[in-house]
């Protein structure tokens, strides 16, 4: 695109009536575009991405549905406050690269968020179009513009402010850390990310499978950060190699801790350490980061169960069970102690799992695991549950039905009931306050911890949550860190 054309586009954008010539009533009647997916019978045998993305025409048609309403409830519904009508208007104007840049003003990771955000309960649930029709497919459009920009090599480095002379260390390269890095480097601070694993991306690379988030996309986002000047120190475990105090001694002026949840929970029941029982983190790390699904090329082994049972009802559970299916299970079960209504997984993921033939066992809780003479799990004894009064989480508490014991055959079990907080940083950082669950306590407005110059966000603060909430925390932290660096750190 030439400069002149760009100027034209910009002018067009500024016109008050916008490029969308349809009347509001007409827009409200347009049908929501469906993103096409890989056929369930095909995709359950491969690790390729399930949704195939919008075509240019679909994206344009879908963008026309946005009412550009003045209240913009969608923006308020987005944890990072993307200018949603703003970027959708640019799609209508056929300036897709401009739309991508508009999103990147507030979200460094659109290709990722467009895929894994629970839009149905954030921006889309409040969409005005959705009052009488289906809401605008904001997530699909976000994914579309990010992919368009990347695939057409239109990604441009943003403007980077002159160096402030201040240095920031970020611990963990997951969504929170990457967001902080992206925001602070643009403001002119020197940024180093320390990552314990050998690839950057945190949960985005070890936790989320290829069929939901291709690793090449995460790598592209990290490469983009590196191009902006972010220094990645991989295979470096802060708290073991250097403590937070030592980072300050090394000349860093502020530290952001985004180490994630990362300490898998187990149920404490009989037989839980038998061979064939994995935490979701281990199972997914073997398959995603260590690419055990590709044994011709990679050396990491993984147990390939014929009957896989995954315990839990979140997105991680869906990821694990669908991975098991793709690795060759004949039967893949979800075992969840509440009913489907209480399941925390995204509706889309549950839907995809069902299409692929995953068997759902609701209101069912394992009592113990039974092994064979080789100490390998062969089955688990479960108890049926019914729902009682709501508990602390607001969800109805599952109550066991006495005598309802039954057996599920399983030679592979994945425990996906959540994570505690990883102790490495709190253990090695004196004066860093944590709550009783070991999560770092912060000021909600600034993400500042009890230690001066140390900020934190993401799952290490909230416990297991979503990518976009971590990114939102990162944005908040970056804003406060910038203020801290400019006011409190003299250079």
């Amino acid at each position, binding site marked *: 695109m030439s400069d002149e054309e760009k100027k034209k586009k910009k002018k067009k954008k500024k016109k008050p009536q916008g490029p969308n010539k349809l009347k509001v009533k007409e827009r409200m009647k347009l049908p929501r575009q469906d993103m096409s997916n890989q056929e369930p019978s095909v995709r359950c045998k491969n690790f390729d991405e399930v949704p195939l993305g919008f075509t240019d025409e679909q994206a344009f048609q879908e963008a026309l549905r946005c009412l550009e309403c003045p209240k913009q409830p969608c923006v308020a519904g987005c944890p990072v406050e993307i200018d949603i009508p703003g970027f959708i208007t640019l799609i209508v104007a056929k300036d897709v690269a401009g739309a991508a840049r508009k999103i990147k003003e507030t979200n460094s990771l659109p290709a990722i968020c467009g895929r894994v955000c629970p839009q149905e309960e954030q921006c889309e649930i409040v969409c005005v179009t959705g009052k009488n029709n289906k809401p605008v497919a904001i997530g699909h459009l976000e994914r579309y513009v990010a992919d368009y920009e990347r695939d057409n090599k239109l990604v441009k480095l943003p403007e980077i402010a002159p160096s402030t002379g201040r240095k920031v260390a970020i611990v963990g390269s997951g969504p929170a850390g990457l967001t902080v890095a992206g925001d602070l480097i643009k403001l002119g601070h020197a940024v180093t990310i320390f990552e*314990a*694993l*050998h690839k950057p991306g945190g949960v985005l690379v*070890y936790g989320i499978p290829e069929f939901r988030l291709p690793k090449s996309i995460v790598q592209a986002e990290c490469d983009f950060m590196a191009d902006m000047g972010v220094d990645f120190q*991989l*295979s*470096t*475990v802060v708290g*073991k*190699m*250097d403590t937070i105090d030592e980072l300050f001694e090394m000349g860093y002026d502020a530290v952001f801790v985004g180490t*994630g949840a*990362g*300490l*898998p929970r*187990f149920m*404490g029941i009989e037989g*839980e*350490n*038998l*061979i*064939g029982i*994995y*935490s979701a*983190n*281990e199972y997914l*790390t*073997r398959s995603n980061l*260590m*690419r055990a699904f590709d044994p011709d*090329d*990679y*050396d*990491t*082994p993984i*147990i390939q169960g014929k009957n896989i049972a995954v315990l839990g009802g979140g997105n991680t559970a869906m990821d694990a069970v669908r991975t098991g299916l793709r690795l060759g299970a004949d039967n893949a079960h979800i075992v969840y102690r509440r009913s489907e209504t209480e399941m925390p997984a995204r509706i889309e993921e549950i839907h995809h799992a069902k299409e692929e033939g995953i068997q759902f066992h609701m209101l069912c809780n394992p009592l113990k695991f039974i092994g064979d003479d*080789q*100490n390998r799990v062969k089955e688990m004894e479960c108890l049926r549950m019914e729902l009682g009064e709501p508990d602390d989480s607001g969800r109805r508490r599952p109550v066991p039905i006495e005598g309802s014991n039954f057996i599920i055959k399983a030679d592979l079990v994945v425990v996906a009931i959540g994570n505690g907080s*990883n*102790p*490495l940083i709190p253990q090695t950082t004196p004066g860093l306050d944590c709550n009783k669950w070991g999560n770092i306590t912060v000021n909600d407005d600034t993400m500042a911890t009890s230690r001066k110059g140390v900020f934190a966000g993401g799952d290490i603060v909230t416990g297991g949550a979503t990518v976009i909430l971590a990114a939102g925390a990162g944005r908040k932290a970056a804003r406060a860190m910038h203020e801290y660096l400019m006011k409190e750190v003299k250079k």
Partner: protein
Amino acid sequence: MPKVVDNRQIGPMIWKMVVETPRLVSKAKAGQFVILRVNEHGERVPMSIAGLDRDKGLLTIVYQVVGKTSALMTTVKVGEEISDCVGPLGLPSHVEKWGTAIVVGGGIGIAPIYPIAQAYKEAGNKVITIIGARSKDLLFYEEEHKSVADELHVCTDDGSYGHHGFVTDPLKKLLDDGVSIGMIMTVGPVPMMKFLSNLTRKYKVPTWVSLNPLMIDGTGMCGGCRVQIGDETKFACVDGPDFDGHLVDFDLLTARLGAYRQQERKAMKHLLGDPGCNLAESVRKFKYPDEQSGTE
């Protein structure tokens, strides 16, 4: 990427690798471990620290060829780099001045027990060292241990060198003689650590064992390295690798270590059968113990 400055065979299927990794070495303590990755497509393997040269920033590990990854490690030439060496991981061995401490190293465990013996010595203890292997050619580090130990016992299962018998024999004699012992620390094959712990339990002497379960990230994230310690499940990477030997469920550890045995053998067979693979002749002759009697 960390540079390999030495990689040599020191026994049948036993190799020693020295890696230049100054920052890691400056932080590491006896009893901790590292995770290595030989190449981009390789496994992450935990390795006990078997020596630290703080002046030169060198880390020593001793490894045995047991599968594809360790076989590939033997092919790394001096001056080449490996993909990763992460650490130091795990908690350092507990060291205090007890008076007399016994360190016991069996098989490949002869190596990591050496820096621990050094640490005990530096803390002012009298150190009695017992090392053992199946036969004379599998023994190594004798000189190193001699330089630290106040008393050194060497054993071979087949009697080809030193005391004919297991490491538990001289240990039992010391215990029977009523030597006052503050701590026993052992690194070695799981059966050895199990028998040793069963023995010392009777004498009520505190006994620590260093466990080396399967592991991926080494930071507590994956939970693959969980071990049963008394009534509790612990993660060897963040709670260990050292545990009270009297509480460890060794049978479960043995089972979990064997989780991928079939897959490992398949990968190894595949590797050894590949004429393009540049493995040392000794590794090409590699056979698992239960295959050794069979014909080619």
